[in-house]
């Protein structure tokens, strides 16, 4: 490998390299505690809402660096309404879930309507939403905490003591068999898809990339999947919240990279006028981005009230910042048009690991904020500078 190739590699995988280095640092700093099965399980379930929100935020940011400030309040409001529906009004869990998702989508559509068709700046529209839905949460809950008692709901959305996919393969002692099976199946599917894509390209006579690089990448990814699987299996298995995160990441990863509508998000962020003249309804792209953000906020709201087994008018504060930070750390451009779902997930993981590592090390809460702030800046500086050099 010559120096140019190494530079290319570093530019392409900057954040993954940083993620590895930070993990190594905390492994050393916590004497390996951060890699304990329970801590890895916690890392995932504590940050489930960030993964979900960051994925939605990515779509908004792609349209031109536009952000949604209202997500924290929407998370809180949907949670509050859901809590009231289930606990005070006795609505069955299934219907409550549907109603909450609908509510999220409607809230999203309300904001999206003004942003897309009247071109009210997203910053203002969602700032308004941030105030409105925070206020409404207080009204709905009467300013009080509402405990969520429904066991079905909390287990389903990753809360309470037993929020794991049940080990129906009957492991009992030692490794959780369902988790192991899921991990192995995931690896096999990944290998199958990669190899089949490669074969297809070869068969149709299209250009294929470097085969060795493809296999190395495959081995590394499978190793990471298996490492996490074993860790989860050593604890209690797959947290239910991880299932939701995986569903969201897979669906949106697919939409953004493989579908025409996904391509429109990138196109609008890259050059809206050119996109419009290419016959694409750019207003609709904005509308979808913000409506979808409302929908995913609703899911994040459910994950939040389930995990905390209550609904409170203060929930969801600063969630928008976690989501926005993850996107930018994960390589999304502040001007729009650039960013990927896997990148954003890496960004969210990086923030999560720093959080957890410092908590285990017993760093002061306030200092944690300082470190997170500096990491956000450093990540973006590094990204911008390395991109500038390579061009």
């Amino acid at each position, binding site marked *: 490998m010559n120096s140019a190739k190494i530079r290319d590699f570093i530019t392409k995988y900057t954040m993954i390299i940083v993620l590895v280095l930070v993990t190594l640092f905390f492994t050393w700093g916590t004497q390996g505690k951060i890699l304990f099965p329970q801590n890895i399980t916690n890392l995932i379930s504590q940050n489930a809402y960030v993964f979900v929100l960051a994925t939605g935020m990515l779509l908004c940011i792609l349209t031109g660096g536009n952000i949604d400030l209202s997500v924290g309040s929407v998370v809180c409001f949907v949670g509050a309404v859901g809590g009231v529906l289930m606990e005070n009004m006795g609505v069955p869990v299934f219907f409550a879930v549907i109603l909450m998702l609908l509510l999220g989508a409607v809230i999203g559509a309300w904001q999206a309507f003004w942003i897309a068709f009247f071109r009210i700046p997203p910053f203002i529209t969602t700032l308004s939403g941030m105030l409105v839905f925070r206020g409404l949460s207080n009204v709905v809950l009467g300013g009080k905490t509402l405990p969520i008692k429904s066991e079905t709901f909390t287990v389903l959305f990753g809360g309470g003591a037993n929020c794991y996919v049940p080990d129906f393969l009957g492991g009992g002692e030692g490794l959780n068999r369902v988790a192991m099976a899921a991990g192995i199946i995931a690896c096999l599917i990944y290998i199958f898809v990669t190899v089949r894509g490669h074969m297809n390209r070869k068969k149709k006579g299209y250009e294929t990339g470097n085969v060795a690089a493809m296999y190395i990448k495959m081995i590394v990814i499978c190793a990471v999947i298996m490492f996490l699987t074993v860790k989860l299996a050593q604890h209690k298995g797959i947290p239910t919240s991880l299932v939701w995160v995986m569903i969201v990441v897979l669906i949106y990863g697919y939409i953004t990279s*493989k579908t025409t509508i996904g391509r429109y998000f990138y196109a609008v962020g890259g050059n809206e006028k*050119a996109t419009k003249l290419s016959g694409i309804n750019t207003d609709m792209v904005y509308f979808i981005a913000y409506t979808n953000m409302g929908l995913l906020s609703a899911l994040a709201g459910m994950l939040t009230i389930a995990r905390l087994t209550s609904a409170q008018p203060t929930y969801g504060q600063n969630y928008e910042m976690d989501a926005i930070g993850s996107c930018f750390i994960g390589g999304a451009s502040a001007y729009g048009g650039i960013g990927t779902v896997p990148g954003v997930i890496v960004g969210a993981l990086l923030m999560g690991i720093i959080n957890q590592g410092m908590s285990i090390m017993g760093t002061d809460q306030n200092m944690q904020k300082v470190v997170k702030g500096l990491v956000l800046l450093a990540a973006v500086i590094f990204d911008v500078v390395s991109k500038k050099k390579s061009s």
Partner: protein
Amino acid sequence: MAKILLEMKNITKTFPGVKALDNVNLQVEEGEIHALVGENGAGKSTLMNVLSGVYPFGSYEGDIIYNGDICKFHHIKESEEKGIVIIHQELALIPYMSIGENMFLGNERGKKASINWDETYGEAEKYMRQVGLTESSRTLIKDIGVGKQQLVEIAKALAKNAKLLILDEPTSSLNETDSKALLDLLLKFKKEGMTCIIISHKLNEVSYVADKITVIRDGSTIETLVKGVDEFTEDRIIKGMVGREIADRFPKRHNVKIGDVNMEVKNWTVYHPVYSERKVVDNVSIKVHKGEVVGISGLMGAGRTELAKSVFGKSFGSNISGTLLLNGTEVHLKNARDAIHHKLAYVTEDRKGDGLILSNSIKTNTTLANLDGVSDRMVIDKDKEYAVAVEYKEKLNTKCPTVEQNVGNLSGGNQQKVLLAKWMFADPDILILDEPTRGIDVGAKYEIYCIINDLVAAGKSVIMISSELPEVLGMSDRIYVMNEGRIAGELTQAEATQEKIMACILRSSKGE
């Protein structure tokens, strides 16, 4: 012989991987207008950036001798102090500031903490009179036309006590009248002792205004032509620029059969989208036949782009009236998508602003207007997309390492080809090409003309809007002349000449 004001000796400048300038020599005498010509990417702008200190001393090899001293500029400010002022191709004016504010931006009158506005506006007007501007210096930049903005740039340079004025493509966005006025202004300055270096693609202007012409090709100086000594014709200059004679600047079309009318616009009237009482297109009727190249000529602001965009799915204007017939049936196009479905394409004049996504790859740009063509039920077949991009890259001879390359890194000519590829892949029957060769070099122009010929040979129709008269005359089967939103005349290829087109415009301006 006059004294040598500037000498650039053996300038070599390398960027990582590329030698942009290779041993370039340039001598400029005091009081002359010296033109630099060359194809895009030949190194003209790089040379001027070396001279003005944009690329600081030490980042290049060779010497700059100005007024007898060796100069080591580290910064633009240092060269400006010596009176070397560069006016860049893209106007660097701030629309919502007044002329006066713009003129002294970074060079403010008065003290650092307290600007003397009276002096600012007073002095601004003094310099504005020198370039023939009669506006108040408190007028906002956005309220004056591009031609006048260019004059403000020159006044701004005068305010910096310019002795050597460098103009990079000063007329690229001006119409013929404004261009002429600007060139005459330069001639007037020359009489007053100013030295100018002018970079231009417009060879007729160069031969009109310049005393000497230095030709740069592939980063080296090829030759310097002197007025009165060497032949000063366009063909002679082109020969130097491309290194061979281009026998025919416009490729011939063979055996293209012109068929029936496939598009007709009748009584088309469009109002301005913001100033809704202003008519920008006024009762225009045009016809286009199958296999025909129809030229639309006219000055800047004649309403040509507005006509094209409003026909293309109402992408411009308000209160549009008139009928559009495609293959004999009347259609109502609501938006660009509709227009594309009806096999229309509009290739914009502003490829960076309205045409391409510069931060995306050639591949993504190629398929943007026809993603359905590479996808199955909304899922993009990436392999097919790649194959399509490669196919068009080869068809149009786009020069790029791979189709994964970002469009923003390509030269103007290659960007134009990507833009054409995008619209050709949308498979239209009628292509409206708006200034298809603006700002691209002679070689690339020729290739674009060949593409146009291939398109009509394949039975498509092309409407070519162009401000360059030779191009319109050389390429069109039929020419419409537009002026002030109206059709001022229609000429066949046989009868059209530059003089007749200008006469149409003048007649219509007088209201006859």
